[in-house]
């Protein structure tokens, strides 16, 4: 007997059919992966099940009985729990307070915190989810917060657990822990629906895979019956090139020259400590490193968002060491920032405005401070077509696009500007395979047209497949340089985590250089 069954669920949003007669069966004790590109309708479907959205057709059955779920409360009462992509946790409250919220033990409205603690501890021990019940959510790591969300669902009596892109926010280590937690939950008799667009996760955790595309279920399979390429084809609907083909690079001319650069972080500590390298036209140089080793500060210095405290930045022979973002854009630096919401887009602006942001002062978009809307929209329409941005029109607000399409907007703008140097920071973060492929192709096109590309990525696969040269950054220094084909994931990982030390000879040299500078 299935614990949860969906029959022909249909959900229509104005202009879009988000779910088109979707059926799905979940048995007790199994992990079903719901795989699909961003915007395929996975989250919509689960929001219907959880009572956050009402369906326009179809039937939900719990334990073979038809039910109407109109609110999360009803879903919870039926034993359905959901961990959302954006956590439903109250940051300043404690772990216990968050878990019992809405179902507090106690009498006459007074909460019995002793009992609450005990219950939380009980569940935590039973499922092996260790967490400090008195810690405030805001003091916990993202992985821990997610654990609290799972505990909350269990406390509420969930037998079916829906996880909406649970690994999107986790480090690889945390993701591994999550998978083992999910395993132990299933061993205890729970059933899990796992929404994702990451192929390797699906292959490693799920019992069954249901693939969605454009609001429809397009296939069902098992990890043992398929592979990455097969899944990608199902998901995108065509063959996807997971590996990148490219010819050898040739250095036409040095475009960016970084010399002994020193940059401080927000706390005033030196985050970049004497970095020197060059990027040629027609070359992709990748900066590989564990997050927080000075990459962000280095990029910000190059694109004019942060003043270096020492060293020199040259772009095609022009000194841009102390250039502002505006000067740096005008000098030909484009920047795909790592956080598209914070730095890449103005979410409340429409696509046309977002697509020309940064060039808005220059002709043809503006002359003498007066904007020319027709020029703006003409460019916007062209870029929407060229970069395959899926939107009804340029009138749409950036906030209404899916993550993949938002990233395409940023890429379209930054590459469409025709820069000398493209700085791409985690350009495929949170994107599905189809969109990743697209962004990679755009970056390679830049390289082929003789532009310089500086790529920063935490995904080693991406670094290895795109880069002509790889610089490994560790604690603000470049500890190693590889040419394409020279390195593999293991070697890179070794140096990224400080395996090669901070390279004593190298450090000695830097110090000498500093002394020499001091003498002069």
């Amino acid at each position: 007997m299935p614990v949860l069954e969906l029959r022909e669920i249909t959900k229509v949003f104005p202009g879009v059919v988000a779910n088109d007669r979707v059926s799905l069966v979940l048995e007790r004790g199994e992990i079903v992966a719901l795989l699909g590109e961003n915007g395929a309708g996975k989250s919509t479907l689960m929001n219907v099940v959880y009572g956050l959205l009402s369906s326009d057709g179809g039937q939900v059955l719990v334990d073979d009985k038809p039910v109407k779920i109109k609110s999360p409360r009803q879903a919870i009462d039926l034993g359905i729990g959901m961990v959302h992509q954006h956590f439903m946790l109250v940051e300043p409250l404690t772990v216990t307070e968050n878990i019992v919220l809405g179902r507090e033990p106690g009498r006459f409205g007074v909460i019995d915190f002793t009992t609450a603690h005990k219950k939380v501890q009980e569940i935590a021990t039973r499922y092996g989810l260790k967490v400090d019940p008195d810690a405030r959510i805001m003091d916990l790591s993202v992985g821990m917060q997610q654990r609290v969300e799972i505990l909350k669902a269990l406390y509420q009596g969930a037998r079916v657990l829906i996880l909406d892109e649970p690994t999107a926010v986790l480090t690889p280590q945390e993701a591994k822990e999550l998978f083992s937690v999910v395993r132990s939950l299933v061993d205890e008799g729970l059933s899990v629906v796992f929404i994702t667009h990451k192929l390797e996760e699906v292959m490693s955790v799920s019992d069954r895979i249901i693939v969605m595309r454009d609001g429809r279920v397009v296939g069902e399979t098992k990890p043992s019956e398929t592979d990455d390429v097969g899944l990608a084809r199902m998901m995108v609907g065509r063959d996807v090139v997971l590996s990148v083909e490219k010819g050898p690079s040739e250095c036409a001319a040095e475009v960016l020259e970084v010399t002994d650069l020193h940059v401080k972080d927000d706390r005033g500590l030196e985050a970049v400590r004497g970095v020197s390298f060059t990027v040629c036209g027609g070359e992709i140089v990748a900066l590989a490193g564990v997050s927080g080793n000075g990459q962000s500060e280095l990029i910000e210095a190059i694109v004019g968002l942060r003043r270096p405290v020492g060293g020199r930045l040259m772009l095609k022979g022009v000194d841009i060491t102390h250039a502002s973002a505006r000067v740096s854009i005008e000098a030909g630096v484009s920047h795909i920032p790592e956080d598209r919401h914070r730095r890449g887009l103005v979410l409340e602006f429409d696509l046309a405005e977002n697509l020309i942001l940064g060039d808005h002062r220059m002709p043809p978009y503006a002359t003498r401070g007066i904007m020319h809307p027709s020029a703006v929209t003409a460019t916007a329409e062209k870029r929407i077509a060229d970069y395959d941005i899926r939107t009804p029109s340029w009138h749409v607000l950036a906030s209404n696009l899916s993550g993949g399409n938002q990233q395409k907007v940023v890429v379209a703008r930054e590459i469409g500007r025709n820069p000398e140097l493209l700085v791409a920071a985690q350009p495929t973060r949170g994107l599905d395979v189809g969109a990743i492929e697209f962004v990679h192709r755009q970056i390679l096109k830049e390289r082929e047209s003789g532009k310089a590309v500086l790529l920063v990525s935490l995904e080693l696969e991406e670094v290895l497949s795109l880069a002509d040269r790889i610089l490994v950054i560790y604690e603000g220094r470049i500890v190693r340089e590889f040419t394409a084909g020279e390195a593999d994931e293991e070697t890179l990982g070794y140096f990224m985590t400080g395996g090669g030390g901070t390279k004593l000879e190298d450090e000695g040299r830097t110090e000498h250089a500093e002394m020499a500078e001091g003498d002069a």
Partner: protein
Amino acid sequence: MLGSIITPDLFAAALRMATPLALAAIGGTICERSGVVNIALEGIMLTGAFFGTVVALATGNPWLGVIAAMVSGVIVSAIHAFASINLRADQVVSGTAINILALGVTGFMMERLYGHPGTTDPSAMLRPVFKFAMADGGFLGTIWNWINGIFLSHTPIVYMAIIIAIVAQWAMYKTRWGLHLRALGEHPRAVDTVGVNVFRGRWVAVLISGALAGLAGANLTLEQVGSFTENMTNGRGFIALAANIFGRWTPVGSYLASLLFGFADALQIKLQIFRGQIDIPPQFFLMLPYVLTVVVLAGVVGRAVAPAAIGKPYEKE
């Protein structure tokens, strides 16, 4: 001279002056913790002060005046609740509108009811709760006189404010209502998904703040002054908001912060008496509470973190 400035009645006055601020500030705390900014405290307090006097004048019973003050506070705050929760209006605009409305309505009704602007006739007032004799002389006698003077000389609402601060603090951290309130102002969607009604929670919080601000108004007219004067709140609602922030959005914190403002006010009045002997313009002393407010709001005394969802109307998906 210092001896004649620092006397029991300076501290007693501080407690007295702190009371309306504290009541409104606690109301503000409860309201803002639910995620609704209540800049209308000033107007609600003024309305409460007015209707308290009207009813006390009409019936001769100051306690009925207190009830009228609280009821009118609840009614005015309901306007704010409806505008900011149901209509999702800008809460600062709604609050400002209510402040202007309260000023106009009280002035207008005064003309209609009493035929003149300015100040009403004196009404019946609430008497001090205790009446202990002063002791004469001796060390123990002096101590008694200080205790008696500072703590035992007050009218009922002064004590009520202290009790309300403590009870509200307890309720906020130990009861279901309090937990839901604290969660509401931070992450209403999280509260909604566990089946707690966001709209109702916010409505209740706004109405409570109205009752407390109304009570603050009653304290002004029925305990401190004895009559109503147009715009007599004179910015106290805004000072209360500052006290709420200074008190880090907690009831007891709000009370203690109000005490500081109350002390500044009491000192200011006291120093007026000595204006002949101190070579500082009296306007300077008058400024004290307001300067303190600006200093607090500018975040000079440690930065306080407001509830995350404050001022944001909640919309169901």
